[in-house]
């Protein structure tokens, strides 16, 4: 066995449940507390998306679209907050941490990397849920959208499974993008609008060709958003792509697959970081 491999295996990360839990709390804390300390998010994270959503609402108004479409846009607009958070707050996070010099500390610390990423995800999820909620309420009030929940339990299950799968995907991307250099920023940037299109953020996903919608279902928000629309918007079922039960099952599978893939990739990256000692180098 090569010396560097021996070294990598002789310095394992601590594996106690308490350390894992404390790391999750520690990494989630700054994301949640920032909501209280840095109030400017009210303008930038709520006003900005609302303006974008309003533009799409007025397009539908110009087209005399049925009122359900306004509801689709408001709900889709609220969910963009999660996609943006996953892209910029999760996927590219380790890349930014490397550029600012923190990544080397993460790798050296006894805390498991999976816990660090999970903390980022939980913190981001909590903060973003608040943002998305405000956008949904304000948007509904501004444009007179009627929302009526058909069944709370399936709705909660869809929402939680969507977030689990989505943030699992974000954790997986975080590891992947760390392998990139300067192009990481461009890849994250590139994933924004195409996913808005494929996941049907501003229109029912069944409007796309059937097989395009099936392929788009690998993005967790496609199924999540479609199921939520069916459960929240009156007449929403008429525009649904698949039955809610099928979409729930799909989301459960995606959650497991993405979280497992994230764990696998993180382990691989940690090994690479220790063996090659180059992963934490800034590559501007």
């Amino acid at each position, binding site marked *: 066995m090569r010396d560097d491999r021996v070294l990598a295996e002789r310095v394992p990360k601590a594996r106690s449940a308490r350390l894992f839990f404390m790391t999750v709390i520690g990494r989630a804390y700054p994301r949640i507390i920032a909501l209280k300390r840095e109030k400017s998010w009210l303008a930038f994270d709520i006003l*900005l998306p609302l303006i*974008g959503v309003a*533009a799409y609402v007025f*397009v539908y108004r*110009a*087209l005399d679209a049925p009122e359900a479409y306004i509801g689709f846009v408001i709900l889709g607009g609220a969910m963009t907050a999660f996609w943006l958070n996953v892209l910029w707050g999760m996927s590219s996070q380790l890349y930014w941490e490397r550029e600012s010099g923190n990544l080397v500390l993460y790798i050296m610390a006894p805390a498991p990397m999976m816990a660090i990423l999970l903390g980022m995800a939980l913190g981001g999820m909590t903060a973003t849920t608040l943002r998305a909620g405000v956008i949904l309420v304000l948007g509904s009030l501004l444009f007179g959208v009627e929302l009526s929940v058909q069944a709370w339990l399936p709705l909660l299950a869809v929402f939680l499974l969507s977030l689990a799968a989505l943030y699992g995907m974000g954790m997986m991307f975080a590891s992947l993008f760390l392998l990139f250099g300067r*192009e990481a920023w461009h890849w994250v940037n*590139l994933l924004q609008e195409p996913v808005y*299109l494929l996941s049907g953020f501003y*229109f029912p996903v069944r409007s796309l060709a059937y097989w395009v919608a099936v392929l788009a279902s690998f993005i967790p928000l496609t199924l999540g958003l479609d199921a939520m629309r069916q459960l929240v918007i009156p007449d929403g079922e008429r525009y649904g792509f698949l039955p809610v039960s099928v979409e729930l099952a799909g989301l459960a599978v995606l959650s497991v697959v993405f979280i497992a893939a994230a764990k696998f990739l993180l382990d691989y990256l940690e090994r690479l970081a220790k063996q090659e000692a180059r992963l934490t180098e800034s590559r501007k």
Partner: protein
Amino acid sequence: MDGLRRFWFGFKVGAWLGWQIESNWTDPFLFAVYSVIKPLAAAAILVVMYAVVSRNAFEHPLFTYIYLGNAFYMYVGGVLQGVSWAVVEDREHYRTLRYVYITPVSFMAYLLGRGLARFVITTIAVLVLLASGVLFLHLRLDWAAVNWPLFLAGLFLGVTMLAFMGLMLAGVLMLTVHHSWFVGEAVGGALFLFSGAIFPLEVLPQWLRPVGYALPITYWLELLRRTLVGSTARAFPTFAHLETPELFALLAAMTAGVMLLGGVVFTACERYARRAGLVDRVTNY
């Protein structure tokens, strides 16, 4: 004469550097694909929205209105962001702003040059978008009937106006720390709503319309539509009372105003940033 030479040199260097930053992170083919995928996807969202509700009535004038407005609005994001983003990128990411600032070139010209690179990339995306519209979506664009001199003059005026708006924003970004990353996007998003890019201003509530009428971008987009698809563009009531030469004159006057304002705001912000020692600040935020 020396001032002009310094300005030109700064512009040239900024444009070259901007192009390198934008394009040399990958091979040319991937870069070309990357440059058109984002705008194509953004346009496709609108196309699908339109198609679903109108049942594919692409021959309707409203589709041409939306499609062209959205295509040319890409310049707003591209140029505005290209000029202003350079401050944040050089200061926070590459950490070279201090070195650029002390070189004997015009800093204003350097930033305008950085915007030129984004202008070129956006132009490629706009051309691809227009070609896709004509080829696949029956966009009512008759190349022979286009008023080319007026179109090119309008395009030049608009891009100049956007560059100086970007300069104004760049000045503000030299003074701000938090959320510098989002300011360009926020301004672009707000202008998207009010400039009648993807729906006629009449769709906005009465009390919001004056915002749209006060924006030069609204006049610019209308002028471009008229030069490209004259009668189709005139089917909408927003500027029906204005003849095309009047529209052009208004746009020219507004552009001159924005250039003056942009120059003044940028110079004032730059002076303040220099006095307060903000030029070489790195926030890590």
